């Protein structure tokens, strides 16, 4: 785009080469080449990353094949490696976190985009941005010393006495486990849902709201039945983005999930997640197969987040286009 303003179309090849020479002399071509190398290195690094993950996990991929994903045993001494407990733990904790974070996040985003005056909305968004900047290990620290005791002494006994007939709320209350990890994770992903959803909601054209209000709907009805459905795909995008974050979340989860490779229907049970097992066992992994099994878990994590991020970006893009399109129409 920017180059079109200076590229005078040259008639003959002689003139073309002369302009190339003059460009070379004043450094433009060199600058172009140097900056190109920097830009290309980003692509190069990404390719190497995928390559390393792929070749680094060759042993278990050949030995276990697809069995890796359905085997429940993780026994480094017998060199039996199955990823099922970790995949289960990752999925369960992510779903619990979305179950909490989605209503809260979208509610807060509606408030920021539709209700709050500009100044208050901006101030609150500033705090939300700061919240997103809090590192994962800090959430883990608070999780260990506040959330775990809170869960063990209050929340889990309460859930058990009221909803204990459900299998998901049964078993002893350890404090650590799927539920605790899910709650800590929810707190971590809420800022992402709020920021993206708020932005998509703000992009909904004004006439949509006004038309709904003019037809006699209340403020809430215009928001919930017109504005939110209009931004639906973008909000879905924010949820996928949050899910991708949650799947790759390592430190906070490692500190509160209990680190036991179990598959249990109870959310009170201690568990394990893909990221947590890598964090805990990578430095202790003895033997190539053990290490490479962990790298294969990393590859699984990479592929999952890759797909989710791709879907999220498409959804957000689709809403942005739609919002812009109708505004002009």
């Amino acid at each position, binding site marked *: 785009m920017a180059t079109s303003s200076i590229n005078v179309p040259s008639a003959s090849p002689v003139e073309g080469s002369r302009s190339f020479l003059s460009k070379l002399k004043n450094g433009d071509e060199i600058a172009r080449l140097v900056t190109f190398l920097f830009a290309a290195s980003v692509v190069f690094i990404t390719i190497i*990353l995928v390559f390393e993950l792929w070749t680094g996990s060759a042993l278990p991929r050949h030995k276990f094949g697809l069995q890796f994903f359905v085997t429940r045993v993780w026994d480094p001494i017998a060199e039996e490696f199955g990823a099922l407990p970790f995949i289960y733990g990752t999925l369960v904790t992510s779903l619990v976190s979305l179950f909490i974070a989605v209503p809260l996040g979208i509610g807060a985003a509606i408030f920021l985009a539709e209700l709050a005056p500009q100044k208050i909305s901006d101030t609150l968004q500033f705090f939300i941005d700061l919240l997103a900047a809090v590192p994962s290990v800090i959430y883990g620290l608070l999780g260990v010393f506040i959330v775990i005791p809170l869960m063990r002494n209050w929340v889990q006994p309460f859930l058990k006495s009221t909803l204990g007939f459900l299998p998901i709320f049964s078993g002893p209350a350890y404090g650590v486990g799927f539920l605790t990890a899910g709650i800590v994770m929810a707190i971590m992903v809420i*800022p992402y849902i709020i920021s993206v959803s708020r932005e998509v909601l703000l992009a909904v054209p004004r006439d949509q709201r006004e038309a709904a209000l003019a037809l006699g709907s209340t403020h809430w009805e215009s928001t919930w039945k017109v504005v939110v459905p209009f931004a639906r795909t973008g909000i879905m995008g924010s949820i996928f983005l949050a899910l991708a974050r949650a799947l790759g979340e*390592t430190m906070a989860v490692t500190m509160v999930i209990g680190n036991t490779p179990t598959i249990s229907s109870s959310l009170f049970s201690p568990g394990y997640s893909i990221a947590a097992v890598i964090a805990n066992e990578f430095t202790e992994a003895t033997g190539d197969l053990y290490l490479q099994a962990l790298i294969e878990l990393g590859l699984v994590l990479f592929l999952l987040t890759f797909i989710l991020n791709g879907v999220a970006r498409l959804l957000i893009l689709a809403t942005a286009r739609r919002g812009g399109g109708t505004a002009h129409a």
Partner: protein
Amino acid sequence: MNARLRWRKLVSGFMLAMTGVCALIAVSVLFFILGYLVYNGGTSINWDFFTKLPTPVGESGGGMANAIVGTAKLLSLAVLIGVPIGFFGAIYLAEFSGSTMAFIVRYAADLLNGVPSIVIGIFAYTLLVLPFKHFSTFAGGFALGLMMIPITLRSTEEFLRSVPRSLREGSMALGASKWTTIMRVIVPAAYRGILTAVLLALARVAGETAPLLFTAFSNRFWSHGWNEPIASLPVMIFTYAIAPYEDWHHQAWAAGLVLLGLILMVNIVARVILSRGVSVPRS
């Protein structure tokens, strides 16, 4: 009819109030975290924390001087790796590149941005730890630098693009070459935005723990040069928080307070830089 309308208004008022409650809960988490850290960290922090090495288990006292220096060393390495690639890459994208190459680079950057930090750690491990058979400061800094690239690249590109076209054309019309235009006109016009992007990227990687666990590892003593394992604040918080010693827990709170204080400060400074008299829009 009237009753129905009253009901609808009631529902509207109630639901809108609930959204306010949601926003309040979300924001109050920040103040809760801050308050708890200031309370717990404030009572544990003292001068020794900044000047002394960690003591052996069972001995009270000691500090995290090595981890503070370690974090600084790791972050300077990360800046050295992440910022040039991000900055010059962004210049290429915004000023030189055709649309195909730009698409590929942007796609790669977004992909890199979405990679979980623990996977970045694995990558740095296979590249810089496995062949040399020991953990090193360099591997840790490399992992953090990788994470800075996509953030710096994408925001810098956005800020370069938002520089008005008339500025470019004015410079070109005066006979300046393209490179002179970029370095003397466009980059200065966008420098606040670029500085903000770099600071935010720095704040983001400063708290990263997962990529350091098996690259920089940790160290209970001073780390000399760039080729030894090195302690860092986030990893220290992790190991101290899950250890069973009361004394270590206090140290973990103190380290948490210092780390979070630093990160939030950099964040606020970055945003203030951006909001003070800029010609470029907020991203």
